[in-house]
């Protein structure tokens, strides 16, 4: 493990779920089936019988951190830690014993917009697995011991994040880009709000927000559709039919150039930057997606990597990504560079945004980007859990059950002119907001 290398940190608001929306396995396309349970619960399924297990992913819309009540920020995240800590007649230990006895993997978490779950279980344990999943979702206990324990785990994590340069930068970015909006609040809350969360808050959130009309399910693996339908009722049949509406305003990152510095005695400055981007339902989304690939999404072939890493050795990594939230679009990026040279790296980011915005795009680079994006398509969905996650994303973003078949044609249809237009429309070098954590030399903060 010592030699194995791990990513720096994730881009602001870029959940893996959303980022994956653009991949898909061509082979899997024809196999996506819509399963409707006897009780009327819908799920999308890919049957893959060669390995005897099933991967299930689920999401509840309008039940993410943006739904946390004021003063209880971090509630959805904490609920994620507690749903598998006792339900029905089973206390925390008994519940975990049941999961462990059948090697059932069960986890929950919350992103900005959704509450999410995932489960892996061997084919011959699906009855037990879906039974426990149903208990967790519909009859969670929130006993005092696990609530105190999970709270302490979260508080400890918050303490760590308070010293982690990447976490600090992302938090500050969100707070300054979305002031006064739920997207600007910390997803995991603060020590104060997490301490204030009581068992009653957790039950109320679960009861009001985890409902069938907000539920989306994807699964891939070894199960017959008919049997799967019955299992759906077992897990989800006991959920309330409707969730409370979530009033959440449309928003966008504040459009103003800004540089904030969080001083920290570390050898390398960590930088997060971002601006407005397209939402997923924007007709320009695919053109912007190809543009982003050329700019900073495409690893070594991306312009930012070439200019900042390959030519000058200023960073180990620099990347950008589109992060379409339900009520806002974001184009964001990150890099890390030694304090003495980070100013140069930031300058180059702005310069590359400008160069791209001016329309300097070659036909050949667009062709190469599309070749990569279409050719690597099957590689992105080569496991059951990735496929299951993709099926959830396709439903959340209204991409259609045939999206896997159509997706490469949508990429192919993006022309050089589309990319140029997307760059002119979306890249706003004069509205880029930077947050730097470290001891940067030669960088001035605004305000």
């Amino acid at each position, binding site marked *: 493990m010592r030699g194995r290398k791990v990513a720096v940190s994730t881009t602001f608001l870029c959940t893996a779920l959303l980022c994956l929306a653009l991949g898909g396995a061509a082979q899997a396309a024809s196999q996506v089936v819509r399963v409707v349970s006897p009780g009327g619960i819908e799920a999308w399924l890919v049957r893959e019988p060669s390995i005897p297990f099933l991967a299930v992913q689920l999401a509840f819309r309008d039940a993410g951190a943006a739904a946390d009540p004021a003063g209880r920020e971090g509630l959805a995240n904490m609920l994620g830690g507690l749903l598998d800590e006792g339900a029905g007649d089973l206390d925390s230990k008994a519940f975990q014993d049941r999961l462990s006895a059948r*090697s059932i993997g069960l986890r929950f978490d919350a992103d900005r917009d959704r509450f999410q779950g995932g489960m892996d279980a061997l084919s011959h344990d699906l009855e037990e697995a879906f039974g426990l999943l149903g208990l967790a979702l519909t009859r969670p206990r929130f006993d005092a011991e696990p609530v105190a324990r999970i709270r302490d785990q979260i508080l400890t994590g918050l303490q760590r994040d308070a010293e982690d340069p990447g976490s600090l930068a992302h938090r500050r970015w969100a707070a300054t880009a979305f002031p006064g909006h739920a997207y600007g609040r910390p997803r995991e809350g603060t020590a104060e709000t997490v301490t204030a969360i009581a068992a009653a808050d957790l039950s109320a959130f679960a009861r009001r927000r985890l409902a069938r009309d907000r539920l989306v399910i994807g699964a891939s693996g070894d199960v017959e559709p008919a049997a799967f339908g019955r299992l759906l009722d077992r897990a989800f049949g006991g959920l309330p039919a409707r969730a409370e509406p979530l009033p959440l305003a449309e928003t966008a990152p504040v459009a103003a150039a800004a540089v904030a510095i969080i001083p920290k005695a570390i050898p390398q400055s960590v930088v997060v930057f971002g601006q407005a981007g397209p939402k997923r339902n924007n007709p320009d989304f695919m053109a912007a997606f190809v543009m982003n690939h050329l700019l900073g999404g495409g690893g070594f072939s991306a312009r930012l990597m070439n200019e900042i890493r390959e030519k000058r050795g200023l960073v180990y990594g620099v990347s950008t990504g589109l992060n379409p939230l339900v009520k806002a679009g974001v184009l964001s990026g990150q890099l890390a560079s030694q304090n003495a040279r980070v100013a140069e790296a930031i300058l180059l980011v702005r310069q590359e945004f400008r160069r791209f915005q001016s329309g300097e795009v070659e036909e050949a680079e667009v062709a190469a980007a599309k070749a990569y994006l279409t*050719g690597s398509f099957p590689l992105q969905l080569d496991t059951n859990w990735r496929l299951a996650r993709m099926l959830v994303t396709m439903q959340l973003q209204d991409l259609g059950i045939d999206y896997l078949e159509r997706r490469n044609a949508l990429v192919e249809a993006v022309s050089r002119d589309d990319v140029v237009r997307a760059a002119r429309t979306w890249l706003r070098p004069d509205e880029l907001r930077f947050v730097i954590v470290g001891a940067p030399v030669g960088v001035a903060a605004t305000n």
Partner: protein
Amino acid sequence: MRLPLAALAAALLLATSPVAAEPRAETFTLANGLQVVVIPDHRVAAVTHMVWYRVGAADDPPGKSGIAHFLEHLMFKGTAMLAPGAFSRTIAANGGRDNAFTSQDYTGYFQRIAKDRLELVMGMEADRMVNLRLTDPEVLPERDVVLEERRSRTDNEPSALLREQASVVQFFAHPYGRPVIGWEHEIRGLTTADALDFYRRHYGPNNAILVVAGDVTAAEVRPLAEKHFGPLPARALGARARLVEPPQRAARRVEYRDARVRHPTWARSFLAPSLLTGGAATAAALDVLAEILGGDATSRLYRTLVVDGGLATSAGAYYDDVQVDQTTFHLSASPRPGVTMAALEAAIEAEIQRLLQHGVDAAEVGRARDRLQAQAIFGRDSTMAVARRYGATLAVGGTLADVEEREARLDQVTAEAVTAAARAVLVPERSVTSLLLPKEGA
């Protein structure tokens, strides 16, 4: 690794799936010594193509720590046929992904690509096995990239700085004590000549393993491998000569205080046999021991310290047997707010003492074995993870049987064997305890 990506999940998956219910692989060896392993998996019309070299950071010459990892970066800087950077650009333009990684014992390069492009990547990988060309204008900026990589992974991370210190203390003589990425002052001194020397000494078909996993058969791979790798001459290799660690007779302790630390952590690592030094049966018993101690929320450490004792927010155990020389068995925990490190440490020691005194029982061994077998089935879902397990095991000197028979070997692990392994390994005099602490007065 040359390109940062979200590999954490994959790395953890590998680390926590130590047993295998692997699909059968086929293997053959070319006349020049290149071992080829083919792992058929026809679910997706794609292949994972990997070349593993039996050389890693533990083979860095004295004073040149980091050279194996630096060379890994430089392998993308071109040959007579390929301009600098053209390797990855060509892979991407063909819809493929590529990257590389370095450990103490091996260096690996991989591409994932549509199956009809297998020959393309094979040709390029064979080319750079013997034809690497390096010049200062390419090499020197890349050295700066590696220094930035070190800052990101280590210098900006107090916990990583402590792990680095703990390794130094764990291995006084053996090169596992040095960081894979290298010491900063030694990285700064690495040159183009150093990289080429290392390359010529260690890279060649007779020191490599080719792993091809995916929608292929051995019959399809063999002629392609013969065509592209077959003509490469074997190299005269230097033997893997590593200093032998002197016996450890006293418990060692490292405390690292850093102003950036707000929450302390505790860890203890014990010298332990690897698959190679201790054999497959012992490795399997230690896998089960790690699962019993720290595998999931029902494990002994989690139950005692986190749930019942209220002393810790986390607790775990970890054992990775895929190393050439002796490895470590690792325990870790983090205190609940208000709990002293002394109280936490005493509770962990009491729990270990209880296990050593009374041993483990057959029922918990059975449950741990079942979980490890299930993890192996989940693990088969990732062709890449399966290919990595084969590659790593062979690269450290293991055999195909070590990979393919682990499931069967787990079935043979008894409570007595686990207890015996625990008594042999969990010995304080052969441990390093490391504490990550806030700066006093901070």
